[in-house]
C-alpha cells in the first residue's frame, strides 16, 4: 500500500510542477477538469487483476517504472528517418505527445477546423466547443488511465466538422514516440466533433521509434451529431518496449454512424478500451479489430457498445493472430438498455493461434434489459490448417510464404474492408512482415505518405 502511495505521489508531484505549462492552463473549466482527473487517479491507483476489467492484463510492469513527462525534443534525427513526403492529405504529427509543426501539414483554406489542441484552446470559439465535449464522454471516476491522461495531457488533435460538410480526404493524426534518454510518458488527447450530417475519415496512428521503455497514455473522444458518418482508423505500432494504453469514447446521436477499425501490431503491453454509446434512434456502429502479437507481448482489446435508444444496430468483428508466448484478450460488452427496442447487435471474435504457447482469452459480455432485441455473438479459436498448408506447398509455395498467405487470408476480412487504400496496402504489408519477423519497425512504416 505504501509503495502504491509513493508511486502516486511521484505523479502528483509531477502534476504540480508541470500543470502551469500545460495547454489551457488559464481556462478555469479545464483547470478543474485536470484537477479532478488527478484526484481520481490518486484515488483509483493503478488497476489490479482483481478488477474484472483487468483480470487478464497485469499493469505491474507499468506501475514499477517511474515515467517522466516526455519533453518536446528537437527532431533533427527524426526528420531524415521519417522520409515524409508531401501528402495530399492533411496531417497533424505529434512527437512524445507534443505538437510538431515541422512534421505536420495542414492546408490553408480548409472549411472545417483542424488544429492541435493547444492552439484550439487559445481560440475562444473553439475553446467553447471543446469545453462542451472534452471529458464529457470519457469519465475519470472509474478509469485510472483516462483520469491520468485528463490531468496530464500535453496536446493532441482537434477536428471539428461543421454541419453538412463532407470531408473527402482522410485526415491523419500521427503520434511518434522518440527516445529522450529516460523512461517517459506521452499523453495525447484527441477530440473529434462531427456536426449534424457531416462526414469525416480519421486515421490515428502510433509509431514507436526507439527501444527504451515508454508509455503512451492516450484518450480520444468522438462526438457524432445526428446523421454524422465517421470512419475512425487506429493503427498501433509501438516499439517492442513501449506500453500503450488507450481509451476511445464515441457518442453517437440519432442516425449517426461510426466505423472503427483498430489494428495492433507493436508494443510490449497494449490495452485498448473502445466504448460506443448509441445514444440516438437508428444509430449504428461497426467495430472491426485486428491484432497480431508475438514474443512475450500482450494485446488487450476491451469494447463496450451501449444500445441506449430504439432501432440502433452494431456489428463487431475482432480478429487476433497470436504467435510465440503472446497473450491476447478480447472482451466485448454489449449493453441493451430498457428502452432500446429493436436493438440489432452482432459480435464475433475470431482467433488464430500460431503456436502452442500463445494464449487468447475471449469473452462476450451481454447485458440485455429488453426483450425486443436481436443479439448474436460468437467466438472461435483455431490453429493453422495443416490441409491448407499442404495444398499451398503442393503448388511450390514454401512454408513461410504459406503461413503468410494464410495469415493474410485470416486478416483479409478486416483489412479488405478498409476504405482508405494507402492504409489498406500498408496494413497488408505490415501483416506480411509481421509473419516473417514479428512486430514491425516503425521506421519501415510509410502509410501516411499518401500518394
Amino acid at each position, binding site marked *: 500500500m505504501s509503495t502504491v502511495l509513493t508511486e502516486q505521489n511521484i505523479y502528483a508531484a509531477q502534476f504540480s510542477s508541470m500543470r502551469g505549462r500545460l495547454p489551457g492552463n488559464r481556462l478555469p473549466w479545464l483547470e478543474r477538469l485536470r484537477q479532478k482527473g488527478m484526484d481520481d487517479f490518486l484515488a483509483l491507483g493503478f488497476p489490479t487483476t482483481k478488477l474484472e476489467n483487468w483480470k487478464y492484463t497485469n499493469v505491474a510492469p507499468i506501475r514499477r517504472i517511474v515515467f517522466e513527462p516526455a519533453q518536446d525534443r528537437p527532431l533533427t534525427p527524426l526528420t531524415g528517418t521519417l522520409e515524409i513526403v508531401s501528402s495530399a492529405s492533411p496531417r497533424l504529427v505529434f512527437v512524445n505527445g507534443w505538437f510538431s509543426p515541422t512534421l505536420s501539414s495542414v492546408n490553408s483554406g480548409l472549411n472545417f477546423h483542424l488544429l492541435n489542441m493547444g492552439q484550439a484552446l487559445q481560440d475562444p470559439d473553439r475553446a467553447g466547443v471543446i469545453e462542451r465535449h472534452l471529458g464529457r464522454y470519457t469519465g475519470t471516476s472509474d478509469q485510472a488511465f483516462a483520469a491520468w491522461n485528463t490531468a496530464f495531457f500535453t496536446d493532441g488533435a482537434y477536428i471539428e466538422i461543421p454541419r453538412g460538410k463532407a470531408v473527402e480526404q482522410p485526415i491523419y493524426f500521427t503520434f511518434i514516440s522518440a527516445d529522450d534518454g529516460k523512461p517517459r510518458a506521452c499523453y495525447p488527447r484527441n477530440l473529434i466533433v462531427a456536426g449534424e450530417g457531416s462526414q469525416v475519415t480519421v486515421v490515428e496512428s502510433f509509431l514507436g521509434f526507439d527501444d527504451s521503455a515508454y508509455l503512451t497514455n492516450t484518450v480520444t473522444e468522438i462526438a457524432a451529431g445526428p446523421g454524422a458518418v465517421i470512419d475512425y482508423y487506429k493503427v498501433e505500432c509501438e516499439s517492442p518496449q513501449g506500453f500503450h494504453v488507450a481509451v476511445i469514447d464515441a457518442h453517437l446521436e440519432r442516425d449517426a454512424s461510426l466505423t472503427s477499425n483498430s489494428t495492433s501490431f507493436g508494443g510490449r503491453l497494449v490495452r485498448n478500451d473502445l466504448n460506443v454509446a448509441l445514444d440516438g434512434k437508428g444509430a449504428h456502429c461497426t467495430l472491426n479489430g485486428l491484432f497480431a502479437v508475438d514474443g512475450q507481448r500482450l494485446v488487450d482489446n476491451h469494447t463496450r457498445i451501449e444500445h441506449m435508444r430504439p432501432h440502433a444496430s452494431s456489428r463487431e468483428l475482432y480478429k487476433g493472430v497470436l504467435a510465440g508466448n503472446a497473450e491476447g484478450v478480447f472482451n466485448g460488452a454489449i449493453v441493451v438498455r430498457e428502452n432500446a427496442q429493436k436493438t440489432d447487435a452482432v459480435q464475433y471474435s475470431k482467433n488464430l493461434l500460431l503456436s502452442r504457447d500463445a494464449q487468447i482469452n475471449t469473452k462476450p459480455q451481454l447485458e440485455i434489459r429488453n426483450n425486443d432485441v436481436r443479439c448474436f455473438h460468437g467466438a472461435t479459436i483455431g490453429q493453422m490448417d495443416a490441409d491448407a498448408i499442404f495444398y499451398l506447398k*503442393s503448388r511450390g509455395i514454401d512454408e513461410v510464404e504459406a503461413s503468410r498467405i494464410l495469415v493474410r*487470408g485470416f486478416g483479409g476480412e478486416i483489412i479488405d474492408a478498409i476504405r482508405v487504400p494507402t492504409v489498406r496496402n500498408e496494413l497488408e504489408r505490415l501483416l506480411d512482415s509481421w509473419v516473417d519477423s514479428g512486430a514491425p519497425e516503425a521506421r519501415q512504416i510509410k502509410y501516411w505518405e499518401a500518394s
Partner: protein
Amino acid sequence: MLRIRKLSASIDGKPILRGIDLDVRAGEVHAIMGPNGSGKSTFAQVLAGRDIYKVVADEVTFNGRDLLQMAPEIRAREGIFLAFQYPIEIPGVSNLYFLRAAVNAVRSHRGLPELDAVDFMSYAREQAKALGIDDAMLKRSLNEGFSGGEKKRNEIFQMTLLEPRLAILDESDSGLDIDALKIVADGINAMRSPERAIIVVTHYQRLLNYVVPDYVHVLAGGRIVRSGGKELAMELEEKGYGWLEHERSECKPDRAQPSKNEAVTS
C-alpha cells in the same frame, strides 16, 4: 521419369499401400483405377509429399532423383503436380494472388524471371478462357464458395499455369456433369506432350473415354493387381471390380521385409 519399387504407406500404423511397383515414362498417360478404399488417393497424396503417411519404399525416383527426400514444395517446383480430389478453400486469399505466388515459386526455381501482377494477369486470363474461368472467378477467394465443377476446373487451370512434368489427377472427374467433364478432359488433353507424363486416378471409366490412357492399372487392397492397355478400363466398366477380387485374395499379406531405402516424410 517416375520409377516406383515396393512403395508402402501407412497411417497411424494402418497399412494402406502394400508394395506398389510402377514405371511411368515421359509422354505416357497412366490410369489408376480401383474400388473405393483401395488406396488410390493415398498413392496420389504420397507422390505429392503429404506428411501424414509413413512411407517405406525400395525406390521412388523422379528423373533419377530420390523423390521421398524432397519436401512437397520442392517436388512441385521440380515438376510434380497433384490435382486434388477435394481442393482446399482458403478464405480471404484471392485465387489470382495464390496462383501468382505458386507460378512465381516454380518459375524462380527453374531460373525464370518472376511475373509481376500485370504480366501474370494477362497470362492467366489467356489460359483461363479455355477452361471457362472468368475474371470474377480469378478474383474470388481461393475455392471459397466454388461449386464442385468450379473447383475441379480451377485445379486443371492451376496445372495449365504450372506446366508440370508429371501431373497426377486425383478423381478430377468425380461429380462433374458431361459438359464440365469435357472441359476438364480437354484441359488434360491439351497438356499431353512427349515431355510430360500424366497419371489419372479415377473410380470410373467415363473420363477415359475422353482422356485415352496408354496404360491402365487396377489398384486393390493397396496393390496393383492388374495392368493392361486401355481395353482393361472397358472390361472394368463392364464387369465392375468384383471379378478381380480373387486376384486380390491371392496376394500374400505383407511381410516385414527389410528394404533398401526407408523414408518417413516429414
